């Protein structure tokens, strides 16, 4: 919602583009390998990943511009790695605000300062703040420049029907209705996914009690990019407030509604203004500010049982809804898109067997359940569901005024990348040194750059054994690392060891003594051409 007198997408700092429906009508029904429903950040990332693998896709979006309702702001390191792989990270690095620190306050007194894991070995910072409009804008620049992606705006998918070897979509735009056949469909159509409804699928899980108003304000507030959580502040007794800095002097303020506080009343402009003013007072800000936008949400942990339905895959919020406290909604979705994108890309270019696609749900749904576990902890701390949780939360906060150990209970412990430990395509584990198969590739410095800069476009074998360099072929890039180098150390690699890295920067397999036959076998397993 926006203040009275301003249009729906009339922002103080961002100009929403306008996109027309497709003009060339005669080719609209030509079959496509992949149809992606939803041109938000997840759909665009999937399209870019497929294009990197040489696969053509068509993006459909019912709107004529970017999202205004969905407002992710935190992009994690792992997502920056993905954006970099897609060649799209440049504008993100230029505009986004990196951060590593969080502070929690109880009744105005700081009780915790935490640092997210970071080191000089890492190319990117643990977290970056950037408005979703910019995220979409920057992805759009890459999508627009990519000849393998066609985007159809104002194009609503109103029907899906399974046909032999594909899915037939009915598409409606302001100029007419048509049908188009796709071999595969990626549903990136958001939390209220129409595709999910058309398929009769339901998200399952829990809803949490706490309701939050989320508001963006523009102000010249002098405070570093540090996430602040205010527990039980004077301006909102018993409630919790989160404050994040964004580019363009925009500040995100989330404040919890009291029990019994009416939603209709809470989202009235005057109420929002008064509540925000009280929060700003609590922050010690006395200058001028403008209200940009606001909305309301409650925390849910909901997911589909299976992210696949026939030849349709659900990616992003259409497959799962997570509470914002874990900052995993967008990040989880980007990882879905990248995971699905390379797998489908490899299948459609004949480098992988269709069986590879069976690993999508176990890997990505596993990641979501992991998020649920963490997010549920955060949600229980932010908005205790019962009197027992509330008493212990309050006791911990109160104790933290003098005893820092209790303040650690307020540490959200956000964002360690998920390990696909039970993946059906994870290969040999080696002797347990270094990151296990399924884990995300760790950071390391290599000759003035970073380990991730040394990877090939597909699978990469990282080894200290120069004798394995001859294994390189179209399927596999081989990078020989120095014995005892930082990268070898971080990976736990000895002189004869090797680590096989997937296109999505997760480790596929590892050996202490790598031999060519084993590497070939692991590559076959990780591309669905062999079973474990």
């Amino acid at each position, binding site marked *: 919602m926006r203040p009275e007198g301003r249009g729906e997408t009339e922002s103080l700092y961002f100009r929403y583009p306008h996109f027309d429906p497709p003009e060339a009508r005669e080719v609209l029904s030509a079959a496509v390998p992949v149809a992606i429903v939803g041109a938000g950040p997840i759909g665009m990332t999937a399209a870019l990943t497929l294009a990197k693998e040489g696969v053509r896709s068509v993006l459909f979006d019912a709107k004529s511009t970017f999202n205004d309702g969905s407002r992710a702001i935190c992009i994690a390191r792992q997502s920056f790695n993905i954006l970099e792989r897609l060649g799209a990270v440049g504008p993100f690095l230029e505009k986004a605000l990196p951060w590593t620190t969080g502070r929690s306050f109880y009744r105005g007194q700081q009780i915790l300062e935490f640092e997210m894991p970071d080191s000089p070995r890492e190319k990117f910072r643990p977290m970056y703040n950037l408005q979703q409009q910019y995220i979409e804008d920057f992805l759009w620049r890459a999508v627009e420049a990519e000849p393998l992606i066609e985007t159809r705006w104002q194009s609503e998918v109103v029907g899906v029907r399974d046909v032999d070897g594909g899915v037939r979509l009915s598409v409606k735009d302001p100029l007419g209705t048509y049908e188009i056949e796709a071999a595969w469909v990626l549903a990136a159509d958001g939390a209220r996914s129409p595709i999910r409804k058309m398929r009769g699928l339901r998200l399952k899980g829990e809803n949490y009690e706490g309701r939050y108003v989320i508001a963006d304000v523009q102000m010249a507030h002098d405070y570093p990019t540090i996430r602040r959580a205010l527990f039980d502040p004077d301006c909102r007794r018993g409630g919790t407030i989160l404050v994040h800095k964004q580019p363009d002097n925009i500040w995100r303020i989330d404040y919890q509604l009291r029990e019994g506080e009416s939603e209709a009343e809470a989202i009235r402009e005057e109420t929002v203004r008064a509540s925000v003013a009280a929060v700003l007072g609590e922050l010690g800000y006395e200058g001028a500010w403008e209200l940009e936008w606001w909305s309301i949400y409650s925390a849910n942990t909901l997911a589909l049982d299976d992210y696949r339905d026939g030849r349709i895959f659900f990616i992003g919020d259409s497959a799962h809804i997570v509470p914002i406290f874990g900052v995993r909604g967008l990040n989880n979705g980007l990882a879905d898109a990248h995971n699905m994108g390379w797998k489908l890309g490899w299948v459609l270019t004949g480098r992988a067997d269709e069986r590879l696609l069976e690993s999508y749900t176990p890997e990505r749904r596993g990641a979501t359940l992991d998020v649920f576990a963490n997010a549920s902890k955060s949600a229980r701390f932010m908005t205790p569901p019962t009197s027992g949780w509330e*008493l*212990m939360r*309050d*006791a*911990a906060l*109160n*104790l933290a005024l003098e*005893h820092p*150990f*209790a303040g650690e209970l307020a540490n959200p412990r956000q964002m360690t990348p998920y390990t696909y430990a039970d993946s059906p395509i994870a290969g040999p584990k080696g002797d347990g040194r270094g990151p296990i198969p399924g884990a995300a590739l760790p950071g390391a410095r290599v000759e003035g750059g970073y380990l991730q800069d040394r990877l090939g476009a597909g699978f990469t074998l990282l080894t200290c054994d120069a004798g394995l360099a001859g294994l390189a072929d179209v399927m596999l890039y081989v990078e020989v690392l120095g014995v005892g180098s930082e990268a070898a150390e971080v990976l736990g690699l000895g002189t004869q060891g090797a680590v096989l890295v997937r296109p999505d920067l997760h480790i596929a397999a590892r050996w202490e003594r790598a031999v060519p036959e084993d590497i070939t076998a692991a590559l076959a397993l990780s591309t669905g051409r062999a079973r474990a």
Partner: protein
Amino acid sequence: MTPLDVEAVYEALAETLDAVGDEKQRMFLAKLALLLARDLGDTALVRQRIGEAAKHLEA
């Protein structure tokens, strides 16, 4: 702890509970439990004591 020590703690608790007042007693006890649990440094024992303290509450 001797029986006398236990008695001293018992008295200090009773006096402090009265001093903080009915409304804050739950919070006080919860804080104390967290503090003592940390001093004890034995999660299994703490969990066992939590279970024991929850017994016979209706007796």
